[in-house]
């Protein structure tokens, strides 16, 4: 009787998880894959083929955008790591008590705010009539208005800004768990700052580095707002192409193929990152 009851309880707990995962995650992605394999041969007539994928590989604009999105996302991930690591180290190791909490909170607050608002802020700062351009004219560094918006540097600034938190928080968490005495021991044994960083701090922070990099990379790759708003109309980002196929052209078959390619790329890079660093998804993401 008792075991029957707990079995029932178990299945009652299992049901929401299974319903959620099947109807909103697994089946939609399987469905999307099947749609991507459909080639339109007439009005409401479809054949199964890889034609949509062929379109992607035969049109340089498409795969160039794909490669560019990947390349820019990887660069953004690197920059975020390089910029964020010293900050995380400072918060985790060089501050104590209240100062630590305050700095940590100051890192968090911008990211509770909508991404749209953050991007909007950068637009006001960087546009031709914006704050930066006016400031430079005011101090006499430039003679006329300068447009800082609508180029790759603007996109990069926005991407790094948008994802900074997701790098700093896991780094602070892992660096916090590193015992100070290990670093002291390193110095006692005659290590230089650089060798201690390389042989003690970074290996210890690896889980945080990997999970930060994965999240930042995913966020950049899947970002739509930042490239569209800061990069302007000509800026090509793969999510923009997907949006166009779905909403503007109503070509869901090609759009699904694009979606699947993006998913494939992101999964591949996450897989490689986990393999190279010897981490697992459950360990790094399920904190």
């Amino acid at each position, binding site marked *: 009787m008792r075991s029957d009851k707990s079995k029932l309880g178990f299945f009652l707990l299992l049901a*929401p*998880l299974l319903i959620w995962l099947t109807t909103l995650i697994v089946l*939609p992605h399987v469905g999307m894959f099947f749609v991507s394999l459909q080639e339109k041969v007439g009005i409401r007539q479809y054949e199964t083929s890889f034609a949509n994928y062929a379109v992607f590989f035969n049109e340089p604009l498409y795969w160039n955008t794909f490669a560019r999105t990947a390349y820019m996302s990887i660069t953004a991930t690197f920059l975020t790591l390089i910029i964020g690591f010293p900050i995380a180290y400072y918060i985790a190791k060089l501050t104590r008590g209240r100062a630590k909490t305050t700095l940590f909170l100051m890192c968090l607050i911008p990211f509770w705010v909508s991404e749209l608002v953050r991007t909007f802020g950068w637009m006001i700062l960087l546009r031709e009539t914006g704050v930066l351009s006016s400031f430079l004219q005011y101090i006499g560094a430039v003679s006329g208005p300068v447009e800082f918006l609508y180029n790759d540097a603007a996109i990069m600034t926005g991407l790094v800004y948008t994802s900074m938190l997701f790098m700093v928080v896991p780094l602070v968490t892992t660096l916090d768990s590193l015992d100070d005495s290990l670093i002291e021991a390193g110095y006692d044994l005659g290590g230089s700052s650089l060798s201690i960083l390389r042989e003690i701090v970074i290996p210890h922070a690896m889980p945080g580095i990997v999970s930060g990099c994965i*999240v930042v990379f*995913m966020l950049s790759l899947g970002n*739509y707002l930042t490239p569209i708003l800061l990069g302007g109309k000509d800026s090509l980002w793969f999510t923009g192409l997907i949006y166009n196929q779905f909403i503007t052209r109503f070509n*869901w078959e090609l759009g699904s193929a694009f979606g699947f390619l993006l*998913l494939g790329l992101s999964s591949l890079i996450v897989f490689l990152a986990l393999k190279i660093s010897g981490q697992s998804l459950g360990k790094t993401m399920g904190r």
Partner: protein
Amino acid sequence: MITTIPQSAPFRWSYRAYVTLFFIYLALPLVTVCVFAFNDSVFPSLPWDGFTWDWFFGTEAPRIGVFHERPILRSIVISGVVAIWVSGLSVIVGTCNAFLFVRHDFRGKNLLYILMLLPLIIPGIILGISILVFSSTIANTLEEATGLWFDGLRPGLILVVLGQFSFITTFATLVISARLQKFDSSLEEAALNLGATKWGAIRQVTLPFLLPAMLAAAVVAVLMSFENFNTTLMLVGSDAPLTVTMFDRLKLGSTPVLNAVSLLLIVVSAVLGLLSLLLKR
């Protein structure tokens, strides 16, 4: 490089300067947005034309303030309704998931756990289009079979709620699981020894212990739902939530009304965010 290790003064100072610069970089866009909400000009850009409250309380075109701007007020209400649904659903499912993963061992647990984490690494726009394609396929099939219309499966608020729910549940699960793991199960056993039923013990002992985490998860879900853009954009119908409405306005050219809305969003998000942190403690 830790506090006990002496460092040269130039190094210390340049490190501090770097940290200061970093925090200026973090604050700059938000401060700018807030400041320009009070600029007495029809564009959110320099020159500074003086201070005004018009972008909040103005009633005459072109200076209609947020509080008199119907489309924006409406989209705030829509965002609120969506957020409440998403938050409620994901906390319920998240709590069930937490109990399942923390308390039970079963075959396929690891696989399910990985599947549960997947929404974290699927780009939002792809979650959106896959749900869009899937629900439309079902709607088409059903409509062909029955001749009825299934509006709920077409882009609109129900799909927006489902789309946001699909990935916010993962966050709720993680927040609630973390707290459940800290629970001392001898408390529950004590309740059982004192004659409580299994469900009674969970309701009287475990759930009150979990409540702060559930509330924190609910607040985080509201925040994430309010600010979500990518998934929502693909599933939105005629009733647009706030982020989509603001995006459409931005594409047309911005006025300081958007700054005023943003300022309100910043204040509300900061308050909600701090609340979720307090609850998680």
